[in-house]
């Protein structure tokens, strides 16, 4: 800023000199003050901007760092130490000067001074090299030289710090206390705002609106407590009444985040340029304290989520180069300090209810592929199944953890081409593991057709599969029963869909054609009796989102896919359209999840049984709201109409007054009404084309 001001000044003076072209530059003018002149302007007033740039004593010192914890050695090994130090510290920037203090014997004192070319490099070095372990005995303590000055100025008298006032945390579960159990959803409009809506009846209402809040992304935590917004500097979490800020997590350029299932931890990932010291870093944070628990480098697969959490937040793991590493919380150390090595391991997944994980290993020359179930932390292999001719596997856990389905893509022929396997004659098996039965029996279902989508019913034991190739796309529903192989319940043939969306409460499913090729078709199916309750479409839809209670479905067209007609439509679970909202630059809509009900299973059953008793009460409420809304609308319209009538009456009066003038212009013929000019009526015969008949003449 200061610089700019100086430039402005120069500019101005340049203009002045232009105006005074006549000035003779050869002769030096007299700069001395006239006699008796009193200089009452201080330097600060005159040159405030320049004074800011005045060299300071610290200027040269700011790029100097002090490294403590350096090995103490005799003069004979000094050269070697210097080369080691240089090598380590040159990583952070160019070292221009160094100083190794020595005692009378020529031994180094265990601390050294290094000067970098710029203060920025010095700061980097402090950040990057502090606590650097040179070897077992020596850990560097790196500080800026200027810091010492700072610490020297600390007064000798200790002043007890003021206790920070206690800041009560607002009730994080306030959103669950909504008396009508209306659900919330967040809407992101690119470059504009984040809106939080409550799905009130009969019209949703906006409860919060934040502008410039996010980089076009939001995420709810799995139990709905927190809302995460993405910013350049990192992640902000919002919670409680009015969604106030809860914590901030600094991670520059953060791209992906993941919550642990119990909302204890947050995983963030940012991809930065490779030369950046924080490049490709994954950080795991404690949400309540806001502190970093551990950071990892990214290696191997970068398919998000890189870390997968066990259901109770106790363990998390990832696969890097044939090694499955499981870590435990809260120590964040490797479980038993040992990874699980298994050449060819490709993917794993935690059971949603138990500390069991399933992983699969690709086939190698003579070893078949296999799926293994592993108990954690004791590493018991509770089931292993060998599979043959495997190209790929996908692991799908049923939400209740009762069943596991492994979708196995199999081949009949394989060709090796430049280190890549080319498969042909593909078909597919579903291996169903009955987790709750003794010895975990496995059933399999074979499908000769390519699989488009697979999904378990979230509550219940059905699964649905979309299979076949366009235009012969079929949807099959299977049920798994204890001790039995899966049974085909129903097959819908020739459908236009490519995705399945189960209601979070089970039973109902939406078959949708998502994306540019999907056509946007929607079918609302009740899987109790396999009735298609409604079929409709939302052209170019890109998202289908059930609300957490399974009462509403939102279909959306996001501007990431197409630029026209972006927005979201709300449907009832039966497929009745409730609302169409077109929003320019609409990016995403996410329902706020709800935690599991606190009512026990008994209580839930009881409520379900007595549903009829509660029904009239809610029905009445709904009717009241509906009539209130329509009354409001009618009042609004009546008002508008009244205003309009008054306005029009005035206009018409004026218009009628001017009739004379109009008649003058049209030769005294009244044309105000269409039939006004009675002299001009002429009768005319008009023929209508009614029917065409072709008679063939012989």
């Amino acid at each position: 800023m200061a610089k700019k001001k100086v430039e402005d000044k120069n500019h101005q003076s340049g203009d002045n000199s232009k105006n005074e072209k006549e000035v003779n530059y050869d002769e030096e003018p007299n700069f001395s003050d006239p006699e008796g002149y009193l200089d009452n302007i201080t330097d600060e007033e005159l040159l405030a901007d320049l004074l800011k740039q005045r060299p300071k004593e610290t200027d040269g010192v700011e790029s100097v760092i002090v490294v403590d914890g350096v090995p103490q050695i005799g003069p004979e090994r000094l050269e070697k130490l210097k080369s080691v130090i240089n090598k380590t510290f040159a990583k952070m920037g160019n070292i221009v000067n160094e100083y190794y203090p020595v005692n009378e014997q020529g031994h180094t004192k265990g601390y050294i001074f290094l000067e970098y070319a710029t203060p920025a490099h010095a700061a980097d070095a402090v950040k990057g090299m502090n606590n650097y372990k040179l070897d077992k005995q020596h850990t560097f303590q790196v500080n800026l030289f200027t810091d010492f000055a700072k610490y020297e100025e600390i007064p000798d008298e200790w002043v007890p710090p003021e206790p920070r006032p206690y800041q009560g945390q607002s009730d994080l579960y306030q959103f669950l206390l909504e008396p009508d159990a209306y659900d919330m959803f967040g809407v992101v409009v690119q470059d504009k705002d984040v809106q939080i809506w409550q799905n009130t009846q009969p019209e949703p209402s906006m409860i919060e609106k934040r502008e410039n809040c996010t980089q076009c992304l939001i995420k709810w935590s799995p139990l709905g407590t927190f809302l995460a917004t993405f910013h350049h500097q990192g992640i902000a979490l919002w919670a409680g009444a009015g969604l106030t800020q809860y914590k901030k997590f600094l991670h520059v350029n953060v791209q992906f985040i993941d919550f642990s299932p119990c909302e204890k931890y947050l995983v963030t990932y940012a991809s930065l340029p490779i030369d950046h010291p924080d490049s490709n870093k994954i950080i795991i944070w404690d949400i309540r304290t806001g502190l970093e628990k551990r950071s990892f480098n990214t290696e191997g697969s970068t398919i998000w989520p890189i870390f997968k959490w066990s259901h109770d937040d106790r363990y998390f793991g990832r696969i890097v180069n044939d090694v499955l590493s499981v870590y435990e919380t809260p120590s964040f150390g490797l479980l038993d300090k040992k990874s699980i090595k298994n050449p060819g391991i490709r993917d794993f997944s935690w059971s949603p209810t138990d500390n069991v994980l399933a992983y699969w290993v690709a086939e190698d020359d003579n070893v078949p592929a296999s799926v293994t179930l592993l108990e954690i932390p004791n590493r018991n292999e509770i089931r292993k199944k060998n599979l043959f001719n495997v190209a790929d596997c996908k692991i799908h856990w049923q939400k209740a953890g009762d069943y596991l389905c492994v979708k196995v893509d199999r081949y009949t022929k394989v060709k090796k081409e430049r280190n890549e396997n080319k498969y042909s004659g593909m078909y597919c098996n579903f291996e169903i593991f009955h987790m709750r039965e003794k010895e975990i029996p496995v059933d399999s279902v074979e499908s000769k057709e390519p699989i488009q989508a697979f999904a378990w019913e979230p509550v219940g034991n059905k699964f649905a599969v979309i299979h076949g190739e366009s235009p012969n796309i079929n949807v099959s529903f299977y049920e798994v029963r204890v001790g039995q192989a899966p049974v085909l319940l129903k097959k819908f043939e020739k459908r236009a869909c490519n995705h399945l969306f189960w209601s979070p409460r089970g039973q109902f499913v939406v078959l949708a054609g998502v994306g540019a090729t999907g056509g946007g078709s929607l079918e609302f199916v009740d899987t109790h009796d396999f009735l298609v309750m409604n079929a409709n479409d939302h052209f170019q839809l890109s998202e289908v989102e059930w609300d957490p209670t399974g009462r509403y479905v939102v279909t959306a067209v996001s501007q990431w896919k197409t630029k026209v007609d972006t927005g979201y439509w709300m449907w009832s679970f039966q497929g009745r359209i409730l609302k169409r909202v077109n929003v320019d630059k609409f990016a995403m809509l996410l329902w706020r999840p709800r935690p599991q009900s606190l009512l026990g299973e008994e209580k839930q059953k009881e409520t379900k049984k007595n549903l009829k008793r509660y029904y009239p009460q809610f029905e009445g409420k709904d009717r009241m709201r509906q009539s209130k809304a329509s009354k409001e609308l009618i009042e609004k319209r009546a008002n508008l109409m009244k205003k309009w009538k008054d306005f029009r009456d005035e206009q018409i009066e004026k218009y009628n007054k001017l009739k004379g003038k109009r008649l003058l212009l049209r030769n005294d013929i009244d044309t105000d009404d269409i039939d006004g000019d009675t002299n001009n009526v002429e009768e005319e015969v008009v023929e209508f084309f009614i029917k065409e008949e072709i008679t063939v003449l012989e």
Partner: protein
Amino acid sequence: MKPLMLHGHERAITQIKYNREGDLLFSSSKDNKPNVWYSLNGERLGTFNGHQGAVWCIDVDWTTSRLISGGGDNSFRIWDCETGKEIGNIEAKSSVRTCLFSYSGNMAMYTTDRAMRNNCEIFVIDVRTVDSSISQAQPILRIPIESSDTRVSSVLWDNLEDTFITGHEDGAIFQWDFKAGKMVKSIKEHSLLINDMQWNKDGTLFITASKDNTAKLFDASDLSLLKTYKTERPVNSAAISPIFDHVVLGGGQDAMDVTTTSTRVGKFDSRFFHMVFEEEFGRVKGHFGPINSVAFHPDGKSYSSGGEDGYVRVHNFDPPYFEYNFDY
């Protein structure tokens, strides 16, 4: 009722207009021949042959004796309605975008595009006697539009011949004093090109159709904005029902963008809004290209739309339309 499909044009319809009684429907198109039809049965009465390029605009006087048209061949022509013969031809320096008869039919106005270093201009001529000498006659009024303002894309003339209103390419609306030949008021409620402006029955309100996806209703006396009708597509034309508080909007995705998207995206429906409540209550499908011009029959019992697909569709309203009432 099944609409009448008037298929006589070979290219996109640019404007349609009923005569005062509503028994005839005139249409202009990008082919060179304006047409006239019986509005009752859709029979074509004849064509007006002579233009050498696209015809952008037409108007018929209140006695249905003369038709005027302007086109891309830089000409403004006057026709005899009964014979279909050209009786006058005025050469312009650039294409003629709009044309209009005055209330009395004694004068006609036309405006030209800005092209080839010629400014956009407004001309008013005397058309009481029309013969071949009219091409040399001096216009009564000639207003060049300064280059700082954008070209005129639609005009309206009030029923006392005192003022006229111009809609512009940048969405501005100017009100002019005719006798003084001066602009008296300007507003800018639209952000993009105004495609069309139409009067209500008594000439106290007018509706504008703009490329900015809206149509708006204005008070003609002071240009105050009364109502706004929002859609998701450019609006090419809008008309006010002479008997109900209804307006109809026609439009759709730009012709040049349609080829890249499916017709479903285009939204080529006529859309009916309640004039006061600004609520949409009906749509009429049919065109397979954008609608370029809509017009109500003067008796309010039917309406017509002309589309980029070259068809004019005459829709007679079914009984439910007349019975339909908004609750208030």
